[in-house]
């Protein structure tokens, strides 16, 4: 990569600020459409507040939400084109954004609950690497998924019998999980579902599905596309609504990814993403050009 490390730091820092002071534009558009179609008064109030909040955050250069969520980076790269100390660059950018008040210091030791003070710590930021041989660019997506949403998550190891006829067992599981989550994940949320692999693989897939895909996209796999649509419509028909206080829409998107698994099992991970879709991505080409990808 021909860019100096300072330039890379700036790209990453700017992407972080963009992620936390706005939400990705696909989600904003869906929110606007959701408000326009909403029939429930309380839900209209919640959705109006959300859209008004986005305007205020953007115009005042403030974080959309007080919680920084959990910092995750999805990095895809080619041959030798990420700088050796990229982890430190990302860590520094998150720390600096924290010091400037864009992120509340919220990372703690899981047992002692001691706050690190600047969103650093063991395993932070979480980085998911994907090596793509021959790729002449680096894709960097940073996603700050909220953690109230984590309280609604679930993972089950289903069996062929439990998947049910026409996947009814799977569909019941997803809807039950949404009912139990209620208003905890700040609806109207996105749901990522990972199916297959083993427990850990399904879990990773579930978070990736809802973190990196545009929420207005259509799955290229027709069976999954149909399932995504059906689950979204079914969840919304439950009436839980925006804010979890009733209304037409609790789910803005359902995104499913699958991977082959063992003949005995069907691991299913269900991962909630709050409406505050704090994710942003850039592509840095080997020749130095950059472009926005999310």
């Amino acid at each position, binding site marked *: 990569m021909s860019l100096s490390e300072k330039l890379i730091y700036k790209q990453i820092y700017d992407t972080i600020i963009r992620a936390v002071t706005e939400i990705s534009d696909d989600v904003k558009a869906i929110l606007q459409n959701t408000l326009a179609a909403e029939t429930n008064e*309380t839900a209209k*109030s*919640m959705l109006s*507040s*959300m859209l*008004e*909040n986005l305007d*205020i*955050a953007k115009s*005042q250069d*403030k*974080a*959309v*939400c*007080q*919680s920084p969520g959990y910092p995750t980076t999805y990095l895809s790269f080619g041959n030798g084109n990420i700088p050796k100390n990229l982890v430190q660059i990302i860590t520094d950018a998150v720390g600096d954004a924290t010091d400037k*008040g*864009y*992120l*509340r*210091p*919220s990372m*703690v030791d899981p047992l002692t*609950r*001691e*706050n690190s*003070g600047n969103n650093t710590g063991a395993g932070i930021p979480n980085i998911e690497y994907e090596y793509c041989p021959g790729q002449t660019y680096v894709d960097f997506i940073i996603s700050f998924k*909220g953690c*109230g949403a984590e*309280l609604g998550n679930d993972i089950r190891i289903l069996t062929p019998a439990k998947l049910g006829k026409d996947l*009814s067992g799977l*569909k*019941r599981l997803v*809807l*039950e999980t*949404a*009912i139990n989550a*209620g*208003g*905890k*994940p*700040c*609806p109207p949320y996105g749901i990522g579902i990972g199916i297959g692999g083993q427990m850990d693989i399904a879990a990773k897939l579930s978070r990736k599905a809802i973190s990196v895909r545009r929420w207005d996209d259509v799955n290229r796999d027709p069976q999954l596309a149909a399932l995504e649509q059906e689950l979204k419509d*079914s969840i919304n*028909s*439950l*009436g*839980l*609504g925006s*804010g*979890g*206080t*009733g209304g037409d829409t609790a789910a803005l998107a359902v995104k499913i990814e699958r991977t082959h698994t063992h003949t005995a099992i069907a691991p299913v991970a269900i991962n909630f993403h*709050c*409406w*505050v879709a704090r994710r942003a991505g850039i592509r840095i080409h080997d020749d130095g050009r950059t472009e926005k990808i999310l």
Partner: protein
Amino acid sequence: MNKIILSTPLHEEEMRSLHVGDVIYIKGAVYTARDLAHIKLKTLFESGEPLPKNFNGAALFHAGPVALKNQDESWRLNVIGPTTSIRMEPHADFVGQLGVRAIIGKGGMEEATLACCRKYGYVYLQAAPGCAAKLAQGIEKINDVTWFELGMPEAIWELQAFEFGPLVVGMDTHGNSIYKSLREKAIEKLNRLYPAG
């Protein structure tokens, strides 16, 4: 429609006059308290030690702000919004004993809290989730912070609200909960959509 603005300290009769779906705003001191603050307050209370604030008539906000330090070491509020209240469900009775009159949060609470709302005369109010920049506009300033060593999110921040809201009554003193009703309806719908077995 005129805004209903209630001032702290809040009174029991005022809370018992509210019903789910009502929308109010709050004026006066509001205290933030999350997981660690509740645990620490309870420990002090149970050992008869003095509490750092008087919670009689208080509005308790499940939240942790983004606060910035000024030159003179005071704090200013950047943004603040509600955290997921259900985590504080174990403290339902304790909060009532403290004299809290309103809990502000998001996502609702469950049976223990609903029973204590009726028993003690406090309500659960939902603030629009994720709306931290907007909600901060209803707060004039930060008065002080207690137990900052717990971390910025977990400390008790005393906020001075002038028109904090809109806050929707999610659980009232009459045994009604929006969350409970919605859950029941949703389960019925689920069983029609994808019958069990």
